């Protein structure tokens, strides 16, 4: 049927061109072949140009005063609209694969396989990256822990924080003579040798690495502050070892008692609280050597 109209159409066209607009129906009746299938090449369209009105007039006429025969067209158009809407809704709603052909399904499957493969590779890459980062952060946190531990230790050694622990309390009272700076220095030195971790004089002055003793009027100057007798020295360390370090023959205690005429009392304590702290002075000249 598709063949016929093009053959049939050119014939009626030239004769119909000048015809008035009001008579479309008789044409169609007399010549039923060139129906809606009538498709002509654009070539013979040109001879319609001088008289353009009929088509538009017919359309207007059909819209304003529809004939009864439009009913059948309306029915078919209704069917078309119905099918169109149904198909559009179905296409939108039906995203499942039920309506696909086998080859299309294979394509979809191929695509999915490729996507899954890519996703797997991506997962592997990201997992490796995650492991790497985890290791890195673990190493970093270990380094941080170590650094914190070092800071704690160094703070204690430098006397920057209050400390508490087992130790001894040594009370040196001047009874018949003055306590010599050298004897005190000796005492501190012996305690350090025995592993004293923190020392404090008279509950107020912490002894540090840069502490210095000096003679002064009415007592002894420690780090520029006057110490007055009785000197109370609190030390944190192994109490027994510390005591032994002080009381051996010709040791500091004997020196203090014999030469300086002082009375020395040593108590071993479960817990000694050292509350005074030193200022963490920044070294002015010393700098860390290279390679440290």
């Amino acid at each position, binding site marked *: 049927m598709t063949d016929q109209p093009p053959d049939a159409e050119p014939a009626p066209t030239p004769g119909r061109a000048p015809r008035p607009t009001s008579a479309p129906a008789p044409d169609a009746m007399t010549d039923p072949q060139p*129906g809606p299938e009538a498709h002509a090449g654009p070539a013979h369209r040109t001879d319609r140009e001088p008289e353009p009105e009929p*088509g538009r007039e017919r359309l207007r006429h059909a819209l304003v005063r529809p004939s009864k025969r439009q009913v059948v067209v309306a029915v078919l158009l209704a069917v078309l609209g119905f099918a169109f809407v149904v198909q559009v809704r179905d296409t939108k709603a*039906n995203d499942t694969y039920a309506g696909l052909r086998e080859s299309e399904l294979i394509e979809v499957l191929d695509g999915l396989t490729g996507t899954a493969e890519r996703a797997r590779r991506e997962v592997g890459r990201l997992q490796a990256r995650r492991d790497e980062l985890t290791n890195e952060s673990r190493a970093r946190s270990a380094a941080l822990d170590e650094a914190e531990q070092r800071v704690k230790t160094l703070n204690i050694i430098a006397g920057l924080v209050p400390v508490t622990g087992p130790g001894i309390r040594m009370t040196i009272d001047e009874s018949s003579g003055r306590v010599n700076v050298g004897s005190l220095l000796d005492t501190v030195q012996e305690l350090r040798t025995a592993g004293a971790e923190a020392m404090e004089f008279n509950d107020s002055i912490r002894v540090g690495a840069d502490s210095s003793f000096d003679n002064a009027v009415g007592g002894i100057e420690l780090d520029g502050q006057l110490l007055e007798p009785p000197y109370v020295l609190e030390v944190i360390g192994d109490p027994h070892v510390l005591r032994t370090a002080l009381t051996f023959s010709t040791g500091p205690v004997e020196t203090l008692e014999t030469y300086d005429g002082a009375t020395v009392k040593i108590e071993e304590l479960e817990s000694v609280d050292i509350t005074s702290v030193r200022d963490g002075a920044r070294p002015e000249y010393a700098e860390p050597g290279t390679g440290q």
Partner: protein
Amino acid sequence: MIAALGLVLGIIAGLAFAPDVPLSLQNYLPIAVVAALDAVFGGLRAYLDGIFDDKVFVVSFVSNVVVAAAIVYLGDQLGVGSQLSTGVVVVLGIRIFSNVAAIRRHVFHA
């Protein structure tokens, strides 16, 4: 006017009832819709040409739909369904284009 009303009515009915497309028709309905569109544009063009005939329109509408569906069915049986339906859509698309061009010349004189 009645024709336009029919189209609107059909669209409303489709929206209102919203039936599911049966599985067996799922391959054919889109092609059938395109074929019907082709028939409608052909009919409109014939009307503007003054050679419209409702009987011819009905016959061409129905046969267009049936032939399009039959071609796709045949293609499905031969295992070239998707290619053949693509071909049918291409042919119908070309025809719709040429029909619309003719209609355009009538309506806009351009």
